[in-house]
């Protein structure tokens, strides 16, 4: 990977204090509201408790928000003609996508770290595997959504595309079983949406095959291949689309 470009992009992102404030603090705030301050937080689930479950969900939400922003930022660059400038260099399409995705993962680590520290301080309990493995999955899986933001930005080529991409994440967050446990038809539909596989996989070290359910309904079970397949398919789709759109962006605008 082009480390000079990567380091410069990272510095550029962290210099943007205002957007970092929202990327880092909003999910932490959500966790304190939905997770830490709830009285069901201590109920046990799989290898830990509900607070840990909510903590992983919110960290995932924060990480995705961060990576969508990084990816969407590419839209503005395209408007500034940066794609044409890079088109004059040996940097490949794949190289560009790799740098952007890597920056996104590092930026995503910021809200994840913050939410996990808050979780540890506010009663999230689980075994070591649940803590460590979930954090790793949240972090790496978030790269997928850098591609989501990138595709939005490249396809719609306007600053509002970033806002639109973030908007879809809230909707997909509900459909992805992040904010509220789903059941029935909605759950069946949810399994095809991009955030579902990612979050389920991130919580898997905690829940193993059990899905959380609201209001004491019988627990639902799900095999690991369902979220895994979801992630694989969405990654392939978005990566392919991103490369196509980058190629298109090199032309004159």
């Amino acid at each position, binding site marked *: 990977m082009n480390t000079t470009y990567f380091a410069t992009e990272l510095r550029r992102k962290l210099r943007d204090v205002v957007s970092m404030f929202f990327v880092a603090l909003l999910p932490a705030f959500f966790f304190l509201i939905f997770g830490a301050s709830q009285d069901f937080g201590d109920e046990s689930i799989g290898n830990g408790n509900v607070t840990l479950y909510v903590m992983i969900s919110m960290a995932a939400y924060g990480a995705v928000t961060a990576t969508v922003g990084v990816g969407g930022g590419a839209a503005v660059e395209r408007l500034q*003609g*940066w794609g044409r400038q890079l088109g004059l260099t040996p940097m490949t399409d794949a190289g560009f996508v790799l740098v952007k995705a890597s920056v996104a993962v590092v930026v995503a680590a910021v809200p994840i770290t913050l939410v996990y520290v808050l979780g540890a301080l506010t009663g999230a309990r689980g075994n070591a595997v649940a803590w460590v493995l979930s954090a790793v999955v949240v972090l790496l899986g978030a790269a997928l959504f850098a591609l989501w933001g990138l595709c939005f930005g490249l396809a719609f080529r306007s600053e509002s595309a970033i806002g639109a991409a973030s908007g879809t994440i809230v909707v997909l967050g509900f459909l992805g079983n992040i904010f509220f446990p789903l059941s029935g038809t909605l759950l069946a539909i949810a399994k095809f949406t991009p955030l579902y596989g990612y979050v389920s996989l991130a919580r898997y070290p905690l829940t193993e095959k059990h899905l959380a359910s609201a209001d004491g309904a019988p627990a639902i079970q799900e095999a690991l291949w369902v979220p895994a397949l979801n992630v694989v398919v969405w990654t392939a789709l978005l990566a392919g689309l991103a490369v196509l759109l980058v190629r298109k962006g090199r032309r*004159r605008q």
Partner: protein
Amino acid sequence: MPAAAPPATDAVALRGLLKIFRSAEGARVRAVDGLDLVIRPGEIVALLGPNGAGKTTTIDLLLGLTEPDAGSASVYGLPPRRAVLDGRVSAVLQTGGLLADLTVRETVRVVASTYPRPADVAEVIERTGLTALAGRRVSRCSGGEQQRLRFALALLPEPDLLVLDEPTAGMDVGARHEFWATMRAEAATGRTALFATHYLEEADAYAQRTVMVAGGRVVADGPTAEIRARASGRVVSASVPADRTADVVRRLEALSGVRTVDLQGDRVTVTSADSDEVAKALLNDLGGTGLEVATGSLETAFLQLTGTDAAHEETSR
């Protein structure tokens, strides 16, 4: 496939190049329409044409930024994208190309990092007069300063061919002068250069050879001095008595130096290398009134050379 490459490879070889765009209204516009151009190593060539002549699209095709609908483009015998990857060709583009929130030095460093063997960053910054601005954000640089930065980026691969698309557009006189001074120093090192411009004076000052394009085609190609002579006629127009128009036109056409005579109602428009002679004849002998003399614009020269409108449009099928 050709059996063997010629011994001295042309720096640029464009053959039968065609690029069609579809406008918002669905009309098909032939931005580049069967363009042929060969540039030999070491030449400094001006691509001269009015707005919409197809200069920028030609450059995009030459750099592999877009694909032709027909014809071929090669740079040092290589496909354009390959030549870019090898650092044989680089360009200063007209539009955008910079990230506003990076500093000048960061921008140079990032672009340098994409090449396997780039020129030294500090040295390129020095050569393009950016040392004092190196720590400044791009968003705080003037248009001329940003253009110098783009020029610096184009020098990073130490290219054999440098392509500049209207490099001084939007610069004031001082910045323009400074830019060409730097450019001249670079050209002196033996680089091949192709620059697009719509200023005849720039072609005159910096190019040995000028290629005029209009309507996506080459309409004139030769030593700049020669092209200049063809383009620098004057235009004389006057109203003439309505009952004598046919006679007036015939007598104007007989004058030496006259290239075209055009009649609209009772208004006659004459392009000529000798405008004084035309004016004299009109006022003294032909009953002309309301006389105007104008320097032939580049656009007028193109009209003369092509005899058609600069933009070819086809209606959608």
